């Protein structure tokens, strides 16, 4: 923050100088020059925010015509006569601007301007033209072209800090702050720092020993090269990028269904980084991979970027709300794109022009037009050749399948036709009314029963289905004969001791949701939802019964909606022992509920053995074809989005409401960079693919200064914990100011001249003295620069959630380095209309992969991960927070994962054994060796004597696993110097 303040104060001071100096000295400047240099800044800075587009008081000071026209109080200037000009009167009397009056010098300038004729240029004033005290203009630092900066070489830079260009920049800045750098860190610190930085993993004790021993001059360079070549580099840095692009593997919002085919994007990011794919190419592929590499699966997969954000798929019938929901979906894409690549918060221009940056609302809707064709969906991927080949293989089979289906239909049709012809013969058998959702009654001769069973052979919507019907209440009534028993009773009721058993659909997080007991609870709502064909009601004791009554919609509220699906065909049996059953009623004597049910009944009656055989044959043949179809390998179908032509015209949504369309817009480059870049405007009917391709080209064009600046800053941010700009996705007015503007531009230029290959930039940064400093605290320096933004020391950091988890797995010797493919889960996924994610209490070996391969669902809380600030991916996370909470302590001490890993580490140490020393070894010596090994594995160092003694004591008393659990909880394990 202090830096930002300095910049601001600087700007004010400079402004003051401009205003006072010439105003009082020069007399005869050219009116245009005088206006541009002195009047315009005041108008833009102090007046236009009200008297511009907002036209407060009817006054618009942006154009000459509007100025001369004046406002509600009439003309505001009388050229040549300041004393008769309302504007001068207002500013002199300090009535305007209302909150903070103009300075005397500023009043003098305006007065002189009016006195000299009130020159006003022909082109309108643009509030975005200049940066002011309260907002950024087109001249904002990050929007200017990259400057050609050379590393400074002032005398103050000592020899060891003048070799590397980065050190020159950093040392010069330190000097201006009265700070000096720290000495070089020791080798153990360096290898730990570099290994975590590039791979997110701890170095092994062997790697530490080898590096400490390596006396070659280029040992450190070799270390960096080795780490950059490691496949774990892409896994670690890929995770960074996944944060930035809000990569998530569930849909978000209420349904939040998990997405099982988004992982190829995660693998693509990892692979691209490991391959050192030029980053500008990566950007283009993410925005338009399908356009620039059609058929190339490794390129097309990039477009998952567009659709890996949250979206609401609940299906709204209200058209206004549905339009709003769609607008929210596109908004996510606009924000993700502008923030990830450009560091611009374009999302703030959704309802109005940006309040702080020169981003117009029309810019937002130009991007809206660009992305309007995106659909969040799967896409089949493959080359034209592959698609044709598969189609070729499928064609004969699908043809055969269609033939068989036709044959089958014809066969069944003939059976049905024959049945229909003879329908009249059967009508006499079905005299009773059809089964009714409102209530179906079966009365039968009194029978002694303990068990009553309903068997369903067809629901009332589908004669072939026997699940997914519902029963709200199932009643079993005693016979009314025997006067001693009094009136008939419903003995099925749970209150009367009845029990009901039947398979139900399950809501895992609410066990009682759809259970069979609901049929005997004496209430009509909610119903049992059957997952099987049977319901068995067991009575408290043997009872003489003569009636059952059941329904799915007793109130009649649901009508014929699916939510009250009922039985169509059924039979009712009773039993005394639960084994021998006696049929007492069935639907066979009822009228069928639909014609389909009727036809089925007659067909079953008339069908011959030969016809039965034919039906079986056809069924077998169909199954065979289906099997062959399944054998042809499908093309990959991934969550990478589909694209529809979205034809214009496109409009600004006034106030962000899709119901209020304003100005017409076309797909175009945002005007925010109009002074630095060559923009583009497309026709409203330009192809959808062209819109995204053009945007991708523009973002990665050599004259776009933001993309390389933002990327260079992200690299710096991850290497040092804070970027040169501390708001990596916001390079606007509300964001941070660069601590080292020259270095940022220089580094951005390096990115461009390295053809956007990042590995050499990493090496450039990591081979600087700046990076290799110690992290030791220094009180005086901290008093000047507490956060080491100027890098007087290497800023220590805490490991990320992923690093902590991976570290435990690695130390325990259990880490599974299987790369790529579908992710593992640390949650239990439950779906019942909506999705619920419950954290697991036990993590099995299938979860021992690196954390980057965890399936990244939204709105989940995962032990260790969430505790240590792994973000929910509802939003992009350009920088993670780093918090300390007691919940972390609870998890790290008590979660079964920690207990498991402690045990595995103990077993590992036991198994590896102490170095053989021949013959018997005393217990204390063995313990000491184990303690040493535990320290080396966990902390990359041996214990000192005091640590050794205390640790050995714990091991003697409680075993090696107790020590391992303690080691996992040390600060030293998760804080990196």
């Amino acid at each position: 923050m202090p830096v930002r303040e300095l910049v601001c104060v600087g700007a004010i001071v400079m402004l003051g100088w401009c205003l006072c100096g010439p105003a009082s000295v020069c007399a005869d400047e050219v009116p245009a020059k005088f206006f541009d240099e002195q009047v315009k800044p005041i108008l833009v800075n102090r007046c236009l925010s009200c008297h511009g587009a907002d036209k407060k008081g009817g006054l618009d000071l942006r154009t000459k015509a509007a100025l001369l026209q004046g406002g509600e109080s009439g003309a505001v200037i009388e050229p040549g006569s300041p004393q008769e000009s309302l504007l001068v009167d207002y500013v002199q009397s300090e009535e305007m601007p209302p909150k903070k009056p103009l300075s005397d010098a500023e009043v003098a300038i305006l007065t002189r301007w009016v006195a000299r004729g009130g020159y006003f240029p022909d082109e309108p004033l643009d509030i975005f033209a200049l940066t002011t005290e309260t907002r950024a203009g087109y001249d904002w630092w990050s929007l200017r072209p990259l400057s050609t900066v050379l590393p400074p070489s002032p005398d103050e830079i000592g020899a060891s800090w003048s070799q590397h260009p980065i050190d020159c920049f950093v040392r010069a800045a330190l000097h201006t702050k009265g700070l000096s750098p720290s000495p070089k860190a020791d080798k153990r610190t360096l290898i730990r720092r570099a290994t975590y930085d590039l791979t997110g993993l701890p170095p092994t004790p062997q790697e530490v020993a080898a590096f400490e021993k390596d006396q070659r001059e280029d040992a450190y360079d070799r270390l960096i090269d080795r780490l950059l070549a490691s496949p774990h580099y892409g896994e670690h840095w890929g995770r960074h990028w996944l944060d930035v692009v809000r990569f998530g593997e569930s849909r978000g919002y209420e349904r939040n269904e998990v997405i099982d085919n988004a992982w190829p994007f995660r693998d693509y990011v990892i692979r691209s980084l490991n391959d050192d794919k030029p980053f500008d190419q990566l950007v283009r592929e993410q925005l338009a991979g399908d356009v620039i590499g059609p058929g190339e699966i490794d390129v097309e997969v990039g477009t998952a970027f567009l659709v890996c954000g949250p979206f609401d798929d609940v299906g709204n019938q209200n058209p206004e709300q549905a339009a709003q929901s769609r607008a929210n979906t596109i908004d996510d894409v606009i924000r993700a794109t502008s923030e990830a690549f450009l560091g611009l918060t374009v999302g703030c221009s959704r309802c109005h022009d940006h309040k702080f940056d020169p981003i117009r609302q029309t810019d937002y809707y130009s991007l809206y037009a660009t992305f309007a064709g995106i659909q969040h969906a799967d896409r089949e991927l493959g080359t034209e050749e592959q698609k044709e080949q598969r189609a070729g293989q499928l064609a004969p089979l699908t043809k055969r399948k269609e033939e068989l289906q036709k044959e089958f239909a014809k066969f069944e049709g003939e059976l049905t036709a024959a049945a229909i012809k003879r329908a009249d013969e059967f009508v006499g058998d079905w005299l009773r009314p059809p089964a009714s959702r409102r209530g179906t009654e079966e009365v039968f001769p009194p029978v002694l029963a303990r068990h009553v069973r309903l068997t369903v052979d067809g629901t009332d919507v589908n004669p072939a289905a026997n699940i997914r019907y519902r029963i709200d209440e199932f009643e079993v009534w005693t016979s009314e004969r025997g006067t001693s028993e009094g009136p008939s009773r419903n003995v099925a009721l749970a209150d009367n001791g009845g029990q009901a058993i039947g398979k139900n659909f399950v809501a895992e997080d609410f066990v009682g949701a759809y259970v069979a007991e609901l049929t005997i609870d004496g209430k009509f709502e909610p119903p049992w939802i059957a997952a099987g064909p049977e319901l068995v009601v067991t009575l408290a004791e043997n009872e003489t019964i003569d009636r059952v009554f059941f329904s799915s919609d007793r109130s009649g509220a649901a009508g014929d909606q699916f939510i009250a699906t009922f039985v169509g065909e059924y039979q009712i049996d009773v039993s005394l022992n639960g084994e021998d059953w006696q049929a007492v009623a069935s639907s066979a004597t009822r009228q069928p509920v639909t014609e389909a049910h009727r036809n089925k009944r007659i067909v079953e009656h008339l069908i011959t053995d030969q016809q039965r055989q034919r039906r079986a044959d056809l069924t077998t043949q169909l199954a065979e074809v289906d099997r062959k179809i399944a054998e042809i390998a499908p093309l990959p179908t991934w969550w990478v989005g589909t694209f529809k032509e979205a034809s214009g015209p496109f409009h600004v949504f006034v106030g962000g409401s899709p119901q209020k369309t304003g100005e017409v817009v076309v797909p175009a480059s945002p005007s925010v960079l109009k002074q630095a870049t060559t923009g583009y405007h497309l026709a409203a009917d330009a192809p959808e693919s062209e819109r995204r391709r053009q945007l991708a080209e523009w973002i990665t064009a050599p004259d776009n200064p933001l993309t390389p600046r933002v990327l260079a800053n992200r690299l710096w941010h991850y290497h040092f914990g804070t970027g040169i700009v501390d708001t990596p996705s916001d390079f606007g007015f509300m964001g941070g100011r660069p601590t080292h503007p020259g270095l940022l531009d220089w580094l951005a230029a390096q990115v461009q001249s390295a053809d956007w290959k990042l590995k050499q930039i990493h090496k450039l940064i990591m081979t600087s003295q700046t990076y290799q400093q110690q992290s030791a605290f220094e009180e005086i320096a901290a008093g000047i620069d507490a956060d080491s933004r100027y890098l007087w020391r290497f800023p220590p950091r805490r490991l990320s959630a992923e690093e902590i988890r991976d570290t435990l797995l690695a130390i325990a010797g259990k880490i599974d380095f299987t790369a790529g493919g579908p992710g593992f889960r640390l949650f239990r996924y439950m779906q019942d209309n909506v999705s619920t994610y419950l954290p697991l209490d036990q993590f099995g070996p299938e979860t021992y992969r690196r954390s980057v391969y965890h399936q990244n669902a939204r709105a989940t809380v995962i032990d260790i991960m969430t505790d240590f600030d792994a973000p929910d991916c509802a939003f992009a996370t350009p920088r993670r927070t780093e918090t300390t909470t007691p919940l972390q302590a609870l998890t790290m001490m008590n979660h079964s994962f920690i207990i498991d890993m402690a045990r595995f580490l103990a077993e590992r140490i036991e198994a590896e054994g102490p170095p053989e020393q021949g013959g018997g070894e005393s217990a204390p010596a063995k313990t000491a060796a184990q303690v040493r090994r535990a320290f080396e594995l966990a902390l990359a160092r041996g214990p000192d004597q005091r640590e050794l003694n205390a640790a050995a004591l714990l091991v003697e008393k409680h075993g090696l696993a107790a020590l391992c659990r303690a080691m996992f909880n040390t600060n030293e394990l998760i804080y990196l110097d």
Partner: protein
Amino acid sequence: MPNPAKNNVTDSLHRALLSRRGFLGDAHTGLLGISLASLLGRDLLASEHDKVALESRAPRQLGNGKLQFAPRAQRVLQIFCPGGASHMDLWEHKPSLDKYHGQPLPGEENFLSFQGRSGNLMRSPWPFAACGESGHKISTMLPHMAQHVDDIAFVHSMTSKTNTHGPGCVFMNTGHVTEGFPSAGAWVSYALGSANDTLPTYVTIPDIRGEPPNGKANWSNGFLPAQHQAIGMNAQQPIRNLHLPSQVSAEEEADTRQLLELLNQHHAAQHPGDSELQARMESYRLAARMQLSAPEVTNMSGETPATLHLYGTEDANPLKAAYARNCLLARRLLEKGVRYVNLYCASRASGVDGLLNWDAHRTLVSDYERHCPVFDQPTAALLTDLKQRGLLEDTLVLWTTEFGRMPTHQAETTGRDHNPDGFTCWMMGAGVKGGTSYGTTDEFGRRAEENPSSVWDFYATVLHILGFSHEQLTYYYNGFDRRLTDVHGHVIHPLLA
């Protein structure tokens, strides 16, 4: 370690409470004890000046002069009935529905609501009765709640931006319809910090039937630091990882902690000035205290039979008994100084509309005959209990839901569809003028008519009662000083005592 990536609390506070441009940065606050005090976000404002170490048990003044107004409330209880609880069947009497029952809703005959077409106007199945001295009428389905009406300030003219449960719940809790923003509880944790040494600052109590629509996003810390996230617990489920694993004896735990302390002290001695290390050590001590106090707070054996009976914790209806125990848990948490408690009554959408929550699309009568008895007695008991114990003096109680319901029945059903254009929320307790109603919907309950109010207005008022200007409680995130009330909101002064 004063690393700016931590978004440390001092920084946030400065950003929040002082003018951005006016703050010239006190570099030392980042170094001295602030990390200790920032644990659990405890008494942030106080710590900024006092550098109060956690060990100090001195009473702390709320907000310590950083508040914009005199605070009336020290803590908040927010009861949430997810699913869109019907205003015209619970809180706002609409006699015209009786009068025009079965007739079309004028001007909206072809209106398409969330699930589609609506039928004609439908009267509430239950009579309303005048309550207390105010005579405000509420549904006779809520006989126990009736006794509190004189303490309640109803806002009958609430409106939402969305007619969909997920975004609606998130909106009602965070002030934004999209996911990822901090909930009101997280904001209050950020603003006021903790008022206790052994329990979380912000607790959410999900219903036994599951999580509300959009799940954990409802109590997310969003972009606020993780210490402001809600800790989930209820009478059925303790705080995660609270208990010592069965393999570890108490003695082993004590010895392990002793070694850990030694190793950490040793490491800290080599890293003087990096206070984050001390903070983490303190967090372990705090966790140990929490392991002792959290089971205490969930152990209800000390409650009198009269209290248990009042709440209905032993009721034969297991859903009611479970919710009653959660109500009692809420009181115990508030009593122990938890700053913000979210108490849910009902949960998410399911295979049957209105089964697990208040979403009575098709069968209003049976749905509400199921939900009201679960809600009524335990909630009323909680309010009575808070009042008896004097806790209402400085506890603000909110009752919220994501939207209301249509005055018409949904086509071919006897239920009502979603209605974001007018519904009821209410507040009571500290700083609230009881027995009042603010705003109304039109005569049918379709749209807010008199004094339409927004979720932002509601929270502007809540923050005001807590002593904050909703426009000044901010946190920078990606391009903007973010607020609970977005860029909207006006304090509803008539609700204030």
